[in-house]
């Protein structure tokens, strides 16, 4: 019954996680985040074309092992298609070097082509490396992992637990707020509101009747959530125990050591 504009957004925004029971799914979230981070740093350090091929290897391996349909991976690339095309074009036509062809005063160069391709491949691998983590890790596990990874910095005053809790709550409320938006939009449309025509200024003004009620309801929900959490004795992260303790297994250590060493080797050698 819940068909409307909002639900499609909701699916796109939080439909990232694909439940499953593969080797990738079972790895500790920290392992996945750290190795992914390592590979991403590697992608920025190297500049030789075939270094990218070497770094793509663990990413591809990860995708294969995760049993996530390739379609989902390519779908995660789609939102960035525009940026990739744009950067490629900018490199191709703006970089100085040996000309390939020219249109009017704009000239495409070999150097530009090379740099453009490298940038696009780098971007694509970057997205794949991170989306394989979000696709195989539930939002709860992600925030849990993040909290544990940030914990050492708590001594320096970083509110690790609070950050993680904020992330969990934000993720939880994305679909709720989208549904709310849909409802408010319809209610204002029933009062003759028009969100589709007019110039930018007019359209921006047309958002006010949606945004004000949305904020009011978000604050109300926040209030209610705070009371509900306190009613269940929440007093911050201090001394809080967990139902599911994160623990590194042998597989985690192996993945961290092997992929870590491999990435460092590639980065240093090239």
């Amino acid at each position, binding site marked *: *019954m819940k068909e409307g504009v909002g639900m499609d957004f909701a699916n796109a925004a939080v439909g990232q996680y694909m439940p499953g029971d593969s080797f990738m799914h079972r790895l500790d979230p920290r392992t996945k985040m750290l190795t992914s981070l390592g590979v991403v740093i590697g992608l920025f350090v190297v500049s030789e074309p075939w270094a990218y091929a070497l770094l793509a290897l663990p990413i591809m391996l990860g995708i294969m092992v995760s049993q996530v349909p390739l379609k989902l991976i390519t779908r995660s690339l789609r939102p960035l298609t525009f940026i990739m095309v744009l950067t490629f074009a900018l490199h191709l036509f703006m970089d100085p070097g040996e000309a390939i062809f020219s249109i009017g005063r704009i000239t495409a160069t070999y150097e530009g082509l090379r740099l453009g391709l490298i940038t696009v491949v780098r971007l694509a691998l970057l997205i794949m490396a991170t989306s394989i983590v979000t696709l195989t890790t539930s939002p709860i596990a992600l925030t849990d992992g993040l909290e544990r990874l940030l914990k050492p910095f708590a001594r320096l005053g970083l509110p690790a637990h609070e950050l993680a809790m904020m992330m969990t709550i934000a993720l939880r409320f994305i679909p709720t707020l989208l549904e709310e938006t849909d409802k408010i939009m*319809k209610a204002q449309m*029933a009062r*003759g509101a*028009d969100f589709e025509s007019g110039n930018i200024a007019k359209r921006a003004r047309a958002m006010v*009747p949606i945004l*004000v009620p949305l904020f*009011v309801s978000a604050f109300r929900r926040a209030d209610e959530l705070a009371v509900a959490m306190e009613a269940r004795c929440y007093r911050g992260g201090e001394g809080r125990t967990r139902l599911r303790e994160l623990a590194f297994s042998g597989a985690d250590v192996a993945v961290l050591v092997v992929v870590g060493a491999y990435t460092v080797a590639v980065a240093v050698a090239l």
Partner: protein
Amino acid sequence: MARQALTDVNLSIDEGDLVAIIGKTGSGKSTLVQHFNGLLKPDSGRVLVDGQDIWGKGVALRDIRRKVGLVFQYPEHQLFEETVALDIAFAPKNLGLSDAQVDDAVREAMRIVDLDYEEFADRSPFELSGGQKRRVAIAGVIAMCPKVLILDEPTAGMDPRGREDVLGEIQALHEKHGYTIVLVSHSMEDVARFAKRLVVMEAGKVVMDGDPREVFRHRQELIDIGLGVPQITDLMAELARRGYGFSTGAITVEEAREILLPPLLAASIESTGSAGPDPCEGRCGHGLR
């Protein structure tokens, strides 16, 4: 929940009627009424307003939405302006009325929902009580001067006093101002009191349709689809089951009183030779004596 959103609903609502649509959560009531003013577009089937297909060529949806006003559930959640008057003016302004016309529409709408213009016009809608907020929101739709007014659970989450106020206004809109009203409701008591016609929805289908008295006669069927009958109807049915020979057709307390009081009085006079002791010892004036 299944994605199937409604199937072969067939329903026509006459001008000047007061129709209540009842059905349990998820039966498609809200989805159905959102089709009435073109907020949802049917994949198949048609919606006609005044004999005109609202998705037909050359039909401006804005005109349809003006003609068919829809008050959502918890309509006070859509308030956004700085003052009550500005918020109610939102719809008439969208219709492109002149300032003077907008002002007239606002005053008239506030009068209809019983909000004093002088007292409330310049107040922030956010500082009002729940019942007042809801009346402002309803006024925000009435200000378009629609022919048909659809109200989706207009009394949800209100205290008894607020319910009475809102229901009284709906009745006044219907009787005094000639609105065609479609009321979506969960409350059997409310619909028994007001509706001239009752439409029962179940899983996207209209399963019963008719005079409330007639529909409430199907007590067991209503219970089977997760609804019920007014409590007083239940009481009368129970009395009949225990062998008291009253008529069971009552759907409001007033009707039940008409049926029960004469035999009760006759019985008490018979047994004591007088009206007997006042069971309430004079504490209340409900006139049982």
